[in-house]
């Protein structure tokens, strides 16, 4: 699955990215790909040995992508995209008592 990590700076409110998920099996499978907390996103395959799905998603917390059976009862595989918030660093401004203007 790509990406595996999304980095948010202080100015960003959410990660918006295209998630590309790919699965492969030795035998034909019937299964569905879902994203936890995003019920409108679902992609199902009927008797396939591999599948590829790309979708643009917006999220603020770790995004969990799951492969489930067609009844969506059992989780067959799961992977997460981690959200990392980039911390701003701060330092002291240069104070110049000698300066005329500042």
């Amino acid at each position, binding site marked *: 699955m790509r990406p595996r990590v999304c980095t948010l700076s*202080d100015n960003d409110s959410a990660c918006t990215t295209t998630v590309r998920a790919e699965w492969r099996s030795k035998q034909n499978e019937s299964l569905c790909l879902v994203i936890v907390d995003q019920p409108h996103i679902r992609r199902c395959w009927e008797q396939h040995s591999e599948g590829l799905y790309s979708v643009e998603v917006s999220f603020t917390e770790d995004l969990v992508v799951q492969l489930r059976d067609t009844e969506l009862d059992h989780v067959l595989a799961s992977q997460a995209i981690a959200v990392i918030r980039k911390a*701003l*660093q*701060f*330092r*002291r*401004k*240069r*104070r*110049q*008592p*000698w*300066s*005329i*203007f*500042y």
Partner: protein
Amino acid sequence: MHSTLRIFVLLLVVATSSPLVAGAQGKCTAVSADCVAVGEWDLSIALGAGVRTNPIADRSDIPLFAIPQLSYYGKRFFIDSLEPGVTLFEGDANTVNLIAAPGYDRVFFSRGDLQNVFVSGPLSSIGTGTVVLVPPQTEGAVEIPGHRRHTTYLAGPEWLFSFGRFAGQLTALREVTGRHDGYEVRSGVSYPLIRTENSLVANAGFTWKSAETVDYYYGVKQLYRPDSAFNPFLKIGYSRQLSERWTLTAFVHYEHLDDQITDSPIVSKHSVVTAFAGFNFKVF
């Protein structure tokens, strides 16, 4: 090494190794008047009215209308308006930087100098000038051509320190653009008199210029060769934050000129006064 610089290096070693200078300001955890975000540009511009008096004979005073302040602070590298630098050491009460700064005195000879920021009227370089010993058309009158004062840059170490509510600065610089190889020591101390929604800060300090520096700006060939000069100054500055981006600002700066400068035949005043009042706008 020049003896002044030797003393300065010794002071730096003491400053960074001893707890004598106390008054920690604490670590920065957010953007404030004293703290900036690393890796971000900041631009402010003060718009108003002001003047800088010109001590050079027959030169007009310099009006001031807009004073920009552009800065960038990386983890160690920074640019503070016209002064780039590198931070060598940063503690709670002491900071040591290596900086480069423009030679200040050129502002009196060239309206186009960047340190005059935005000025009214056509930009002009009053480069050379002449010195007339006695009034023209007088028997025995002699005209001695002056010389052009180029933009110069100086470089050297800077020590910033705090002690209680005092903030201090001591900078030792040597001219590195090959014009006069002179030295300058710039020092100042500031103290906040009022620290409420209104801010009133008093500053005092001095500039010491070596003989080479003074001679470059105020000497006259064959006629006047000055020695080093010591110019003390006083400044009082006021500000009041009106909103997130707008601040009311005003200051008056008085610098007394050493006799080595005022004795020059091209100098007609004993001091320089800079005053400005206006509104500071934080662009980003």
